[in-house]
């Protein structure tokens, strides 16, 4: 199945070669730098794991098999954390290519915001909107 970086309640921002992801559902932040950021940006550009690994191998001359297995392991860990999801692949951008040398990709995880999230009185207000109550339905009929 294709992978997408469009995940509900996940905010992403790119700063030069760094990507910050913030999960609004559980208050966890992630920092992706170096190859980790490049893999995420590759997925965002609509590339498959094989295409990303192949692009890295072409630019670095490293062993494609080794890169593929490391990229796959990283993608699996991002899936497990909910940083990407199975679904329709992101729109393909023809201009993407990896920047910098390849190193085993990994993310930094910051969960010190969980407490803050629990403290906040309105953090889970959201997509469900404002369901009408029965009394309001009655109001409508009158």
């Amino acid at each position, binding site marked *: 199945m294709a992978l997408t970086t469009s995940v509900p309640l996940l905010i992403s921002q790119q700063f030069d070669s760094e990507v910050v992801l913030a999960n609004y559902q559980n208050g966890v932040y992630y920092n992706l730098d170096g190859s980790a950021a490049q893999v995420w940006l590759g997925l965002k550009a609509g590339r498959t794991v094989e295409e990303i690994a192949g692009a890295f191998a072409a630019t670095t001359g490293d062993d494609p098999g080794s890169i593929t297995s490391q990229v796959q392991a990283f993608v699996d860990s991002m899936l497990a954390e909910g940083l990407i999801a199975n679904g329709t692949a992101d729109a393909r951008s023809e201009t993407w290519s990896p920047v910098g040398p390849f190193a085993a990709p990994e993310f930094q995880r910051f969960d010190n915001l969980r407490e803050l999230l629990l403290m906040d009185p*309105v953090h889970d207000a959201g997509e469900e909107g*404002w369901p*009408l109550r029965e009394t309001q339905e009655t109001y409508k009929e009158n």
Partner: protein
Amino acid sequence: MKASGLIRQEIAKVFAKADFDKTMSEPIEAQARCGPFGLRLGFASQDLARMFLPAYIQRPPDTIDLDLRFITAADHDLSALVPEASEKPRLLIEDGIYSVWQPAVIPVLYAVDLIARRGIAWLPKGEAPPWIRSRPAISLIHAMMHETPWCAVHAAAVGSTAGFTLLAGEGHSGKTTAALACAKAGWRYAGDDFVAVNSETGQIEPLFCSARLRPSLVDTFKSFIGETTPVSDFNGEPRHELSLADLGERIGGGQLRALFIPRRRGAALPEFTPARQSDAFRALLPTTAYELPGWPNEIADKVARIGGLTPVFFADTGTNPMDIPSAFALQLERL
């Protein structure tokens, strides 16, 4: 009728003159500046005015951008607007209506008709959580900033002749200590909790003239803050909710020159370490986004832009708060 239609209808009723006169025995009106906006404030009673007015910067604005009324269940029965499953917080953004239901221990309903530019803060129990008194109806100000370059950010901001610094960080990082130390030293003060920042130009404007002070800091700032209010306690976070209205014209804004991320790493004197735009983003976004419901992607974009407007530094604020102003001034002048 859609929920937004019902809310719009009830807001209009609150503002109907005849209804206002009939139900509110002692309405209080005031004008205030709140970030880039001018507010006309209406309080249904002296009690409500005493509760919220001290936090507002009471200066006549050039224009009125929002008419805002504070009312209780005794003034208007708005229980029909409370959403289903009322124990849950809820957010509605629909057809020009923005509304937040905060159940908590002391419930509050905020709603604004962004087309009519009229808002309400409804307090079903006649009282408000103390931390809301220091930043009343800030979620409605956030709604007014939608599709503008302005953003209400969780940060303190103070300014010297060299420009303003935004102090961003989690609780206990030392934002209030640094901001009050600078204000005590004669700096301009734009806030210690939430301030308005233009994400395109870097202009900073105060939203409120309040401060949220830990009891342990009262002695440090006693001569400056005057009388303290009773301590509020929100989830084990005791605070004095203060009004700094006596600072007068020193409550104000200016141009952002640097973003400092206060942290305590044991330095005796204040020290600065260069930080990245992403550090500023991480320092600003969490509380900003969590406390201002709605449009999280837009908030993240604005916060990212703000983090990239100026140099960013980690600031170890040292052991003596009174050393902070001169160190901050020196750092700002170097830029």
